[in-house]
Each structure stands twice: as structure tokens, then as C-alpha cells.
């Protein structure tokens, strides 16, 4: 659990992901999948744009069922998110793993990624493109929660809805934050497929050192 074991262990294994991060990551996968699939069903009841989501990708069967899933899974998603963010802030995990974030380094590493030259030698350290993507994902999920609360409670949380352009504005914010999350997750999954040895580290927490 301690995040201070980043150094090389005697065995040649390096610590990549703390236990709290691994557990919250997989709970989050489950919660976000439920929120997305049920959210798409809810969207289909009154589409904001000129398209609907394919029923095969939705959850709940109809609007009432989708709402039940959405408002049940939100507790799992938010409580799990609170544990993750509290741990990330208190332990210094965010500071160590996600900082510094310089636009130039991010662009440089994205360029390297497209040329297939991005280094993944030390899996315990994120490159600048990863740091930017993970930080953006955390921000997008926070915006999703805030806009979701504004849609759910536009009267009780009027102050929250008003900064997003009232109820209808919050619906748009909620949609685009969802789109950002989907985009980042797709790139994330693609990168795991391209660098498959990162995958087991999200279960075991460690990787063999590349010398």
C-alpha cells in the first residue's frame, strides 16, 4: 500500500501501482461502465443531438430501469472516487505520479507516441502524455459528477447549475464530459493493448525491471 517503495526491490521487481489505486481502479471500471451504459439509455429518452445510442450498448431496458441503474451506481462511483482522490492527495500519489505537467513535454511525448518511440522502460513512472491523459480523466470525471448533481438537483443545488448555464447547460456539460471520458478511456485501452506488459501490473502492482 505504501507508495514509497518506488525503488528497485532486491528481487528486481519494481512497485508500479499501490494497492488502493488497483482496487479503486477496477471498482471504477465497473461503476463507469454501468454509468455509461445506463446514461446512454437515459440520453435516448430525449436526445440532445441528432443521434441515439445503439440499444445493444445500453443498460436498463427502458428509461425507468436505466435511471435505477444510474442512480444506484452513482453511489459506488462517487464513494470509490472519494477514496481514490483522498488517497491521491493525502499520500502524495497525485503529486509524484502526475506532476510536473508542462504542455511542451506533453506535446513532445504525444509526438513520440505517434512515431512509436515513446519509452515505457520504467512502468512506475508515467511519461508526460500519460500524466496529461490521467489528469484530464480525473478532471473530466469530476466535471461529470458536478454536472450530474446539477441535473439531478437543479433547485437544491441551484448554485452548481447556474455556473453551468442552468439545467439545460448542465445537460450539455454532462454530455461533453462523458464524451471526453469515453475518448480518454479508448486511448487508454488502446495503449494497454499496444504495451501489454502494463496490463498485469494493474492486478499485481509490480513489474519486472527492464535493465
Amino acid at each position, binding site marked *: 500500500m505504501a507508495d514509497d517503495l518506488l525503488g528497485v526491490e532486491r528481487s528486481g521487481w519494481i512497485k508500479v501501482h499501490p494497492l488502493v489505486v488497483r482496487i479503486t481502479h477496477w471498482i471504477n471500471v*465497473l461503476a463507469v*461502465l*454501468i454509468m455509461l451504459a445506463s446514461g446512454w439509455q*437515459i440520453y435516448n429518452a430525449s436526445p440532445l443531438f441528432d443521434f441515439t445510442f445503439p440499444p445493444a450498448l445500453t443498460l436498463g431496458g427502458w428509461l425507468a430501469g436505466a435511471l435505477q441503474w444510474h*442512480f444506484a451506481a452513482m453511489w459506488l462511483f462517487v464513494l470509490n472516487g472519494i477514496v481514490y482522490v483522498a488517497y491521491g492527495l493525502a499520500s502524495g500519489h497525485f503529486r509524484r505520479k502526475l506532476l510536473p505537467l508542462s504542455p511542451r513535454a506533453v506535446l513532445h511525448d504525444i509526438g513520440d507516441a505517434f512515431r512509436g518511440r515513446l519509452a515505457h522502460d520504467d512502468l512506475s513512472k508515467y511519461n508526460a502524455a500519460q500524466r496529461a491523459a490521467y489528469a484530464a480523466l480525473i478532471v473530466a470525471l469530476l466535471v461529470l459528477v458536478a454536472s450530474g448533481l446539477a441535473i439531478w438537483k437543479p*433547485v437544491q443545488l441551484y448554485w452548481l447549475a447556474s455556473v453551468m448555464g*442552468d439545467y439545460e447547460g448542465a445537460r450539455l456539460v454532462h454530455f461533453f464530459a462523458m464524451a471526453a471520458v469515453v475518448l480518454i478511456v479508448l486511448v487508454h485501452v488502446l495503449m494497454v493493448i499496444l504495451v501489454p506488459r502494463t496490463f498485469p501490473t494493474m492486478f499485481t502492482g509490480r513489474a519486472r525491471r527492464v535493465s
Partner: protein
Amino acid sequence: MNKSFLVHRTPQVKRLERRLFLGRSLSLGALALLSGCNLTDDAAVQRVLTAMSRWNDGAQDWLFDPKRLAPEFPESRITQPFPFNGYYAEDEVIEVDGGRYRLELSGLIRDRKPWTLAELYALPQVSQVTRLICVEGWSAIGKWSGVRFSEFLQRIGADLTAKYVGFKCADKYHTSIDMATALHPQTQLSFRFADALLPAKYGFPMKLRIPTKLGFKNPKHIAAIFVTNTYPGGYWEDQGYNWHSGS
């Protein structure tokens, strides 16, 4: 599985395999959720979802501030044309005979005499321009006029400590709300829409306008009102929509 492989299955490798298996099971479980439309109909799943919906009723009751007002808008923001919505099509809207109409009262109410429309119109009238939010997601701003529901409940001697106020409608619709919302200053027994007599499609002779609840909690064509401590449910609520559905 040959022997040399088994030799290499150290406890560490075994632990790794177990974790990989757990992880994959988790992903498979998530996939099953996504593809399973029938999952929601499973009795055990439905019990959990219903229990969570009841829990959310409590959470919303706790979040509800009886003094917090829904935003009001200038009349220039009124949605034109204001959408029709109901559990039937617009051409199936019922026509209520205003002359013969009597509002029936029952339950925990001291004075249960029926009310004529003329008597109701004589009560002090107020107006509001508020946003109606449908459970489907869309919203529309309209202007409603009528009597404050709290004023009406006090006049008929309703038990204001009771839990629920229920509504039976002339179009066979029914719903119920919590007493705290019934007493909210913007909850209105509305007789007029856009400064004209409430048209049939918006609920003649009266609807309960609640800007702190979703549209389906705003019953139209109200025929009877009752006060009770027994959970009355509702047309959509009984089919799975969240009962509190507060904004």
C-alpha cells in the same frame, strides 16, 4: 500441462494467476452487465435496484430545503409552444365538465366537503414562471396561476404532520408527494396557464404545479386529493420511476 511448467508455478506465480483470473472475471462481469437487458428484470437485481431507489428517496428528502425556491424566469423566457406530455397521446386528452366538477377530499382532512370550481377560483391566487423538467430530460418554461397548495391544505384542515398527499385524476392517472413538498411555497394548485383558463391538454380543471419535482409528479385533471400516512405510490412510480423525484 507439462511438468517443467508446474515446477515454475511458484507461490508468486500462483498469486499472479489468481489475480489475473479475478481481474478477468471482473471484466467479464462488467461485459455481462452491458449486454444483459434481461439483467434488470432479474428478481434479485431488481430487489437491489428498488432498495437503492428507496434509499435515494431518503437522500432526496434529506437534501430538500423547504425554503429553497426554484428559479423564476421573465415571461419572455416562456417556451412557445409549450409541449404536451402524458401517458397517452394528445388526441386522447379527456374533457372534464367544469360545471358538474367537484374536487373530492378524503383521508386525514378535517373538512372533507367537495369543492366547486367557483369556490376554488375565489381563493387567493398567485402566479409563477418556472421550469418544468421532464424525467426524460427535456425542460420547458411556463406560467401557471392558482392557489398556494399550503394555503388550501390549511383551509381544509389537512393533517400537516401526515407523511403523504395523494392525487387521483380524471384520466385515471395517480401520484403522491411528501408533505414537505406539498407545503413548499411554490407548490401550487393551478387553474390557469399562460394567463388563460387551463386548457384540457395541460390538465383542466386543475393541475398541481410543483417546480421542485419532475414533471410526472405534477398531476393533471385532479379529481380527488387525500392525506395519508400509508405510502400511496403512483402510476409511473409503481412501474419503477423514483418516487421522490425531487429537483
